[in-house]
């Protein structure tokens, strides 16, 4: 079993110059046994601090961490039965791969040398590093070191894996390869895993659920698809997805969301959810949902833009243009022959738009439908703080 609960986890650092810094602010989450949870957010959002609190490397200021219902907050790192994989691998440079992997077992168990050897060999086999066991880290490539580090984690057969950006020191190709391997490994072993990353792709592809953090506060926790299509607020909407969602300030007038360059006529369903005339919102739309050229022609709210930059990526081409004085991204088919300077018509389909409260940033409409209010407003204090 490896059910991990974070209960109001709070970590405040006191800094002599800057006073108190709230790194993690009342983080609540329940991670089921065998679940793969991704902690994602920009630099300094508190994701690594959260992980370090769970590992026991930082003592939380408030709150509790429970493993299978039992608080581990008073336990030392070694007593928590968790293994951690570090960004820079943190292998012992003076030990061979075998010694690195067996160190934890030698320190914490009474296993005989033979038993330790067996377990190391087993883990090495899983990681495919049998040939590297007698080498020192300095003789291994980055990818091989990462495998040894993972091997060191699995050899201890922990309840929970904690991974702190384990792939970010690898080159792009190896990262993609290790990403799938790591997923396979996690599924095979079925060990509860908390994985910290700032990488979009890792967040979207690897985990069962994503927890999006910003400024120490949990913004949303849900499946990758939920976070993508039903973001709880403007931050999540902007953070998840690459390129980012486009945001525009709009004002409601006579069932139309109006702005400088475009209008969007809304459905009665949306109108029921929002305030009356004159109220202001932030409209969000993903680059791939914007209709352009022929597709936009039939639409009633179409408008024209001047293409500034054309960015072909191979599988898709992005256009950049100014809308309402802000740069907007539009995804078009890769076969496009558009060039910078071309004038095209575009439209925002009403059933793909997101609306966010212009003050709090909370989602009101997601993809043309009322946002599920399940997550956001549960913790009223979050909203109040943002308003202040």
């Amino acid at each position: 079993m490896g059910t991990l609960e974070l209960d109001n986890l709070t970590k405040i650092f006191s800094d002599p110059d800057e006073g108190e810094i709230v790194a993690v602010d009342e983080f609540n989450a329940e991670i089921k046994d065998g679940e793969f949870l991704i902690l994602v957010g920009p630099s300094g959002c508190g994701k690594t601090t959260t992980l370090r609190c769970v590992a026991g490397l930082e003592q939380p200021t408030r709150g509790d961490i429970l493993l299978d219902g039992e608080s581990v907050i008073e336990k030392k790192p070694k007593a928590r039965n968790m293994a951690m994989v570090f960004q820079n691998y943190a292998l012992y440079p003076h030990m061979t791969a075998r010694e690195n992997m067996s160190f934890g077992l030698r320190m914490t168990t009474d296993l005989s040398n033979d038993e330790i050897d067996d377990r190391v060999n087993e883990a090495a086999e899983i990681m495919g590093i049998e040939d590297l066991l007698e080498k020192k880290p300095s003789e291994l490539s980055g990818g091989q070191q990462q495998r040894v580090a993972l091997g060191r984690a699995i050899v201890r057969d922990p309840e929970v894996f904690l991974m702190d950006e384990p792939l970010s020191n690898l080159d792009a190709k190896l990262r993609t390869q290790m990403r799938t391997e790591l997923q396979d490994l996690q599924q095979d072993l079925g060990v509860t895993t908390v994985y910290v990353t700032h990488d979009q792709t890792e967040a979207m592809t690897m985990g069962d659920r994503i927890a999006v953090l910003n400024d120490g506060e949990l913004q949303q926790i849900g499946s990758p698809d939920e976070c993508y299509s039903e973001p709880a607020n403007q931050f999540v909407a902007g953070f998840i997805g690459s390129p980012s969602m486009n945001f525009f300030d709009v004002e409601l007038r006579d069932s139309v969301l109006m702005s400088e360059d475009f209008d969007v006529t809304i459905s009665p369903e949306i109108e029921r959810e929002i305030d009356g005339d004159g109220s202001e919102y932030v409209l969000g739309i993903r680059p791939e949902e914007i209709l352009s050229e022929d597709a936009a022609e039939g639409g009633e709210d179409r408008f024209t833009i001047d293409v500034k930059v054309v960015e072909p990526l191979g599988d898709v081409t992005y256009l950049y243009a100014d809308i309402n004085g802000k740069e907007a991204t539009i995804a078009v088919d890769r076969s496009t022959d558009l060039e910078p300077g071309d004038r095209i018509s575009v439209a925002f389909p009403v059933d793909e738009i997101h609306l966010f409260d212009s003050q709090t940033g909370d989602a009101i409409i997601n993809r043309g439908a009322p946002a599920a209010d399940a997550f956001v407003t549960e913790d009223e204090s979050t909203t109040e703080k943002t308003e202040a």
Partner: protein
Amino acid sequence: MASKTESGSVSPDAVQSLKRRLSIESLSLHQQETIEGWLFALPKVLVILFVIGFPMVFGVYLSFTESTLLALPGEFVGIENYVWLMNYGTWWISLKNVLIIGAVKIPTNLFFAFTTALLLREKLRGSALYRVAFIVPVAGPPIIWGIVWRLFLFPTEGGIANSLLLNLGLIEQYIPFLSSTTFALPSVIMSLIWAYGLSTLIYLAALSGLPPSVMESAAIDGANKWQKIRYVIWPLMKPTTLFLVVIQLIMVTRLGFAQVFVMTGGGPLDATMVPSYLVYELAFSFNEFGRASATAMAMLVVTVVIALLLYKPLQSNAEYYQ
């Protein structure tokens, strides 16, 4: 001559004409760079030749002469001075003494330095103060500390150590720390051991270079404090330790001059004689510059032998410096 422009710098035209006249341009680029390199290095090379090269060569020559302060260099006598040195009991005693001093001082120095550095690394209240306290013995001139130790140990009623021990009832009569053949050398060693601040500093620097994640990894792996030191920190300090051993071994023949000079003068009965003090005594007390030079050369040979012996192990341990 190269004409100067108004701003005072040499004009490019003038440089060109000088180069032409010196026919530098006819040389290959590589040759030109070589000449430039030597020109840049020349001032330093000259200084080094003057302050190091000349005295060294002159010292070697002196060791083959019978010289006094008034006759420098004196009459050439071949290897006579070396033959004399090999038969000179005090030289062998001084060599033995300095090896004893090194054998005690170096390990204790490393032990105290490493353990102190570990303690100073902890976030103790006032650790900055302790750091300074451990550096002070190294910061001051050794001669001053020698005098302090002499005042501390001098076997009269004024000697602090004796007064303390006597008043505390630990001894019944004064111990002649510096004037007995039994206690003199240990006393000199004592005065050398305590100045381990520099090694502490070097260990502290090395400790601060330990990757924090490796230490955290050890914590998660379940190593306790002692195991972390034994299995992770100490092995990772190996290059530093080796460096400190090598530096101290290479300087071993120079050990203790200041302390011996102010505390014992090499006595009693050569009990604290060290090679560096022997050289000084031969030259400035006995006016035997030839023999003093031969002794200094013998010290050099010992040092070179030690350095050569250490060369291999040092090379094979370079791997941790990544």
